[in-house]
């Protein structure tokens, strides 16, 4: 049972059902940003004195790590907004879920690029120091969060369950961030805030940060809308099944 589409002005095309004019402009900016990132990160920025070409991994490793933190914090805020009675809406729950999924994607990229970088600068892919361990722990925590979202039940049950987990999980973010200050790790300290990147290197990192931030917003909008459609389909599901049964009955 497909509802007949009613053409209306400003309606999105079927080719891009979750797109709007805003996301299209944003999407173009994302592509431009990523192209700049490749241009500056791989070609225009200089090699580091000691790290040589290895430093180029920094321009994706650091922005994706920051954006993953941000994504998990957004998940926490949206979850709190869902639990708070006056703002309770499944839209908040879907923003939380969408943001967590993007955070997991970015954190995964951080871990992979980090271990490649580790191999060429430290000489090893992985070790159990405080920064690496807490980051990996954060990563699997949010995979667990996404699994909990898919355990079933009503949308309200899903939202409440996952919101409580998100509020606990977000406490890990400061733990990861300050792990390099509280303990003595192999991983280096933050270098950006202390101004230890020079000229074009700092600019390349800045380009990466802008590109991944725009990408995050673009992904969040689209993922949240797909989730909304999936939820609507769940709700519709029962009606559709009944209608199909009735139609079958009429044909006999």
């Amino acid at each position, binding site marked *: 049972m497909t509802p007949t589409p009613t053409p209306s002005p400003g309606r999105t095309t079927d080719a891009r059902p979750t797109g709007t004019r805003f996301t299209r402009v944003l999407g173009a900016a994302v592509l431009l940003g990523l192209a700049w990132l490749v241009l500056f990160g791989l070609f225009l920025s*200089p*090699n*580091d*004195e*000691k*790290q*040589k070409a*290895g430093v180029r991994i*920094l321009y994706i490793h650091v922005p994706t790590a920051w954006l993953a933190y941000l994504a998990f914090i957004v998940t926490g805020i949206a979850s709190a907004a869902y639990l708070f009675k006056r*703002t*309770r*809406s*499944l*839209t*908040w729950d879907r923003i939380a879920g969408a943001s967590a999924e993007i955070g997991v994607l970015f954190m995964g990229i951080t871990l992979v690029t980090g271990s490649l970088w580790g191999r*060429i*600068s*430290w*000489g*090893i892919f992985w*070790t*159990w*120091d*405080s920064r690496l*361990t807490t980051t*990996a*722990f954060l990563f*699997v*925590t949010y*995979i*667990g969060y*996404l*699994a*909990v*979202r*898919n*355990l*079933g039940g*009503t*949308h*309200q049950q899903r939202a409440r369950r996952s919101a409580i987990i998100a509020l606990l999980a977000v406490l890990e973010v400061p733990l990861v961030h300050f792990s390099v200050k509280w*303990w*003595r*790790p*192999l991983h*280096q*300290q*933050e*270098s950006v805030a*202390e101004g*230890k990147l*020079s*000229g*074009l*290197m700092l600019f390349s990192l800045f380009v990466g940060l802008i590109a991944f931030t725009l990408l995050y917003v673009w992904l969040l909008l689209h993922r949240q809308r797909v989730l909304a459609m999936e*939820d609507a389909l*769940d*709700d519709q*599901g*029962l009606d559709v099944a009944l209608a199909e049964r009735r139609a079958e009955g009429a044909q006999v």
Partner: protein
Amino acid sequence: MDLSPREVVPTAQGRKRKRPWLAMSVLGLVLVGGGVMVVMFLNNAVDYYCNVDEVGVKDGCDVGRNIRIQGVVQEGSVEQTAAEYSFVIAYNGKEMPISVGSQPSGIFQECIPVVVRGQAVDEGDGVVFLGDEVIVKHDNEYDAENADRLEQSNAEAAACSQKG
């Protein structure tokens, strides 16, 4: 985006999840993985390494025990023979000779901080650290590579021996 509160009607009631077992098994793996990580982390010391000047002084940095030590590779101290690869690292004015089997990988070089895993052994005439693994610990300072900066790298090399 409509964020206004709506009338709360439980939705998707009684719907069948297609693959709850998938979510369940992912959750199981997550719990196991998280546990493994905690164990691995606790098996390693909370502080990843001891500094050279803490060996035999600080709790947990004893001679004869499996530890990691950190220090700066001293200029001119790297020697390679058929049997071993040796160098001296220093931190806070204390030096420690290191002996490892083969040349370290990564960006190993003089004047760079490294973390060596192994054992400090008292050989009568002094303590030697027998390393199993050398990890380069890069700091957080970056500078563009430039062939013309000989003067500055000389200055840095001098700073390297001072650091130790």
